[in-house]
C-alpha cells in the first residue's frame, strides 16, 4: 500500500499527470453543465450594454411616466420592459444584467480571498496542535465575534479622508470587509478536516518515510481538503453577494443608483414591491440562483473527480 501510494503521489511526471486530471474534470457532466451556466452569466454581464441599447433603457435611467402608476407602483413585464420596472421606474432586466458585473466583481474575489486566507489558517492550526492551534483558533473566534454591521460602520468612518473623499476604492473596501468576515468559516472547516486527516494512516505513512512537513501539507493534506472547501466556496458565494447589499445600505461600497443583485433584492424586500411586481425580486433572484447553481455544479464535479477519498 505504501509503495503504491508513494509511486502514485511522488512519481515524477507531474505534467503528464495533471493534464488527464483536467480532462477528467472536464469529462464530468456536472462540471460542463456548471461551466455553461457560469459562462452564460458572464456573457450576460458582458452583453449588458447591448441589452441597454436594444431596449433603449440605461441601467440608472428612470421612466416614471411609462413604467410607474400615478401612485408609484411599478408595472410588470411588457414588450418594452421585459422584466418590468422597479420602484423607481428603472428596467429590471437591464439592471439585472448590469448588476451581474458588480455582484461577480465583488462576490467572487471576496469569497476566493476568504477561501485562501481561511484555508491557510485552518491548515496551520489543524496541523500543529498545541500552542499554534490554540492561538489561531482563538484568533478565529475573536474574528467571529466581531459584529459585522458595527465594524463595517466604523470602517466607513475611517475610510473618509479629510476632503470627504474615500481613501480606499469603495469596491476594494467591500471585497476586503466581506473577506474579513467570511474567512473564519473556511478556517474552522479546514481545521476540523485537518485534525481528522492528521491521524489517518496515509499521513502517518508519509511521515514515516521522512516527508517534510511542508510537502506533507501541500501534497497530502491539501488535496483532501480542497474539494470540500471548493464546495463550501460555492455555498458562501451567495451569502457574500447579499452581504454586499447590506454594506451598500450602510453607505459603504457600491452606491445607489448603481445596480447590484444584492441591492436589487434588498430594495424589493424593503419596499414590499415584489408583491405587485414579483419580477423585481425574481430577476436578480433567478440570476443569483443560476450563478450559484453553476459554481456549485463545478465545485461538486471537481470534488467527485479529485477527492482521493471520493
Amino acid at each position: 500500500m505504501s509503495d503504491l501510494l508513494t509511486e502514485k503521489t511522488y512519481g515524477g511526471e507531474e505534467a503528464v499527470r495533471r493534464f488527464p486530471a483536467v480532462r477528467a474534470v472536464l469529462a464530468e457532466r456536472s462540471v460542463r453543465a456548471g461551466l455553461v451556466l457560469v459562462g452564460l452569466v458572464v456573457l450576460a454581464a458582458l452583453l449588458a450594454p447591448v441589452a441597454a441599447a436594444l431596449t433603449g433603457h440605461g441601467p440608472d435611467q428612470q421612466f416614471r411616466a411609462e413604467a410607474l402608476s400615478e401612485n408609484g407602483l411599478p408595472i410588470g413585464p411588457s414588450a418594452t420592459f421585459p422584466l418590468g420596472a422597479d420602484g423607481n421606474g428603472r428596467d429590471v432586466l437591464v439592471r439585472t444584467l448590469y448588476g451581474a458585473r458588480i455582484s461577480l466583481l465583488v462576490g467572487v474575489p471576496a469569497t476566493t480571498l476568504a477561501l485562501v486566507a481561511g484555508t491557510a489558517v485552518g491548515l496551520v492550526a489543524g496541523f500543529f496542535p498545541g500552542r499554534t492551534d490554540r492561538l489561531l483558533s482563538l484568533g478565529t473566534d475573536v474574528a467571529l465575534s466581531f459584529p459585522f454591521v458595527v465594524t463595517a460602520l466604523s470602517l466607513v468612518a475611517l475610510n473618509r479622508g479629510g476632503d470627504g473623499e474615500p481613501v480606499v476604492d469603495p469596491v476594494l473596501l467591500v471585497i476586503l470587509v466581506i473577506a474579513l468576515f467570511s474567512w473564519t468559516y473556511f478556517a474552522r472547516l479546514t481545521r476540523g478536516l485537518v485534525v481528522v486527516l492528521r491521524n489517518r494512516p496515509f499521513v502517518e505513512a508519509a511521515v514515516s518515510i521522512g516527508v517534510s512537513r511542508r510537502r506533507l501539507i501541500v501534497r497530502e493534506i491539501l488535496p483532501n481538503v480542497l474539494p470540500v472547501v471548493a464546495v463550501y466556496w460555492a455555498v458562501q458565494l451567495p451569502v457574500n453577494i447579499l452581504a454586499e447589499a447590506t454594506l451598500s445600505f450602510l453607505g459603504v461600497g457600491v452606491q445607489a443608483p448603481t445596480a447590484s443583485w444584492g441591492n436589487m433584492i434588498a430594495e424589493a424586500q424593503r419596499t414590499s414591491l415584489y408583491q405587485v411586481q414579483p419580477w423585481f425580486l425574481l430577476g436578480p433572484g433567478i440570476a443569483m440562483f443560476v450563478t450559484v447553481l453553476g459554481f456549485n455544479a463545478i465545485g461538486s464535479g471537481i470534488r467527485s473527480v479529485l477527492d482521493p477519498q471520493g
Partner: protein
Amino acid sequence: MKKTTSRRRRALPPLLAASAAAALLAACAGPAAPAGGGASGPAADQAPAPGGTLRIASLQSDLDALDPLTGYSTDSWEIIRALTRQLVTYPGSTTDIKDDTTLVPDLAESWEVSKDGKTYTFHLRDNIRYSGSSTREIVAGDFVYAIKRFCDPNKQVAAINYFKLAFSGFADYCEEFAKVPAGDPAKSKAFIDSHDIAGVSAPDDKTLVLRSDTKNYDFLSILSMNFVSPLPEEVVSKYVGDSLEFRKNYPSSGPYQIASYEPGRSLVLKKVPGYDHAGDPARKAYVDEIVVDFTANSEDAVVQKIQSGDADLSLYLDVPPLSTIQRYQASNSPYLHSSDSGAANFITFNARPEATSPGAQALRKLKVRQALAYAVNKANLVQAQGGKIAAKPLGQIITSTILGHEDFDPYPTPGDAGDPAKARRLLAEAGYPDGLKLDAVYRVNAQFETIAVTLKADLAKAGIELNLIPVPPAQSSAYLQDPKSRWDVFLSGSFAPDWQGPSTRMLLGGWLNSDAAPCGTGNVHAICYDNPKLNKLAAKAFASDDPGPIWAEADRLVSADLPWIPLFEKRKVAITSERVRNWTWSSLATQADITNIAVVPAR
C-alpha cells in the same frame, strides 16, 4: 424637530400573497360589508361603545422612549398620551390632524393670564390621582419637579430650547445644573431639591404659577407637549431616567396604567379602575385595555396582522407599503385614513462660512438656488412617496396645517414637473453655462434613497450633477455639523411640526431665525440662514395677538429667498382593522389618538 421614526424593513414574509388574495376577494365581494357585530357600517355615526381591547402591532421591538422627559418621537408620544396628562391638551379630531388645534383644560381646570401676558396661574382639578407605582393625589409641586428635571445632566429634556424662552430663570438654572457631575442620580436629586427656577412655582397644592420674560402667543401650546407632565418625585427619583425599572414602575397620571411590560414581547395598558371621566374632557378612554405587540418585526408582518384582524393599529410604521395602500384604495376601504400632517421634506445647503467648495459658493447666489428650485421635479417625488394620498408638492416654508399658511409657490413649474430649460438659463446667468457639480449627502434609508436617486436623475436634465454621498442615519447630524465634512447639499432635510396650528415658531422663529439659532453647533442641518428682516418679523410675531399675517409675510419673504428648496408636504397614512370605531387623529402624535379610538366588542 420631532422625529418620525425611520422605516426598518427586513425578511421575506410568508403567506402574504395568500392574505392579499383573500383581502382582494373580500373586497370584490361587495362594498365594504360591515364587519363588527351590530354596527350598521364602519363609518356609522353612532356613539362608540366602551370596552374591549385595542391591539397595536409595533414594527420596532421596543419603545424608543416612555419617560415624558425624553420621548420626542411621534410614536412614543402616541403611547405616552395614554399614560400622562398635562395642564392643557388637544382633544383629538375625527376629521383631520390639522383640525385638532383647540386647546382644552386637562389637569388644570382653569387659568388666569396676567395683564402683561407674561404670567399664567393654573388651578388644578380636584380628585386627580396617580395610578400604578403611586396612588397619591397629583399636586402642583409635581409639575415644578418635572420642569426642574428638564436639564438634569444625566438625561436632558428633548426640546430644551422651547423652555429656555418660556420660563424666567430657566436658562440660569440649567447653567448651574450643568455643573453637577453626570452619573449620580443622588447628586441630581440634591440639586433639584436645593435650587429653584424663578419663573416656576407652586404657592399651594392646587396652584401653579408659570412666568415668562416675554409675552408668547403660543405659551399654552408649548405646555401641551408631553414634557410638561406631573411626576411624583418620591417615585421617579429612585430610578435612572427611562430605564426598564422606571418603565415597570411607571407613575401614570393618565387614564391607563402599565399592567405588564416585556420589551420585545408586549406592553399591556389597563384602564385605571374608577377613572374620573368627567374630569378628563380630552381623553374618552373607550377601550378597557391597550396591548402593544412587539413581535412583528417587518412591515409586511405588521400589515398582515392588521389585515387578518390580529391587530387594530400599527406603531412605528411611517407609511404602509405602497402596495398595501393601493389595495385599500382600490377597495375604497373605510379603514384607510389619511390626513395632512404639516410635515415636509426639503433640500438644505451647506451655508456655514467654513464651506468654501465651488458648489457651496455657487449656492450662495440666489440665481443658482432658483435654478435648483426650477430643476426639481416635485411631481416625480410625490409619485415616489405613493402619489396624492401620501404627499403633495410644496413651494414654501410654512406647510398647510400651520398658522400663517397662505398657499403659494414663488417658483412654480407646469404640473410641478420642473423646468430644466429655465434652470439652465438661470445657471448660465449666474456664471455656470456648463452646469454645476454638487456633493449631495443623503441619509441611507429606503425613503431617502429613493428621493436621492430621483433628484439625481431629474437635476441632471438641468445640467446639475449630484455626487451622491450616503451617510448612515445615526451619523447624519454629526456629519452635517462637522465643519470638515464635505457636502454642498443635504437631500434628506425634513421636519414634523411639534403641534398643529400655531407652531410656526419652530421654523420661521427657530431654525431660520439667526437670533434664536445662530450659525454654529445646534443650528439644525447647518442651515445658517441670516435675514435681519425675518428676525424682526419673528420678534414682532412672538408678542403679537394676531401673529398669522406676520408669519404669512415672513413666509413670502423667506420662501422667495430659498434658504432651502421645499420639495413636498407629507400626508399621514394609516390603516386599521375592521374592529376600529371612532377613528381619531391626534395633533401631538401626528397619528392615531389611542385614548379616543373605540373597538367593536368581541362577540
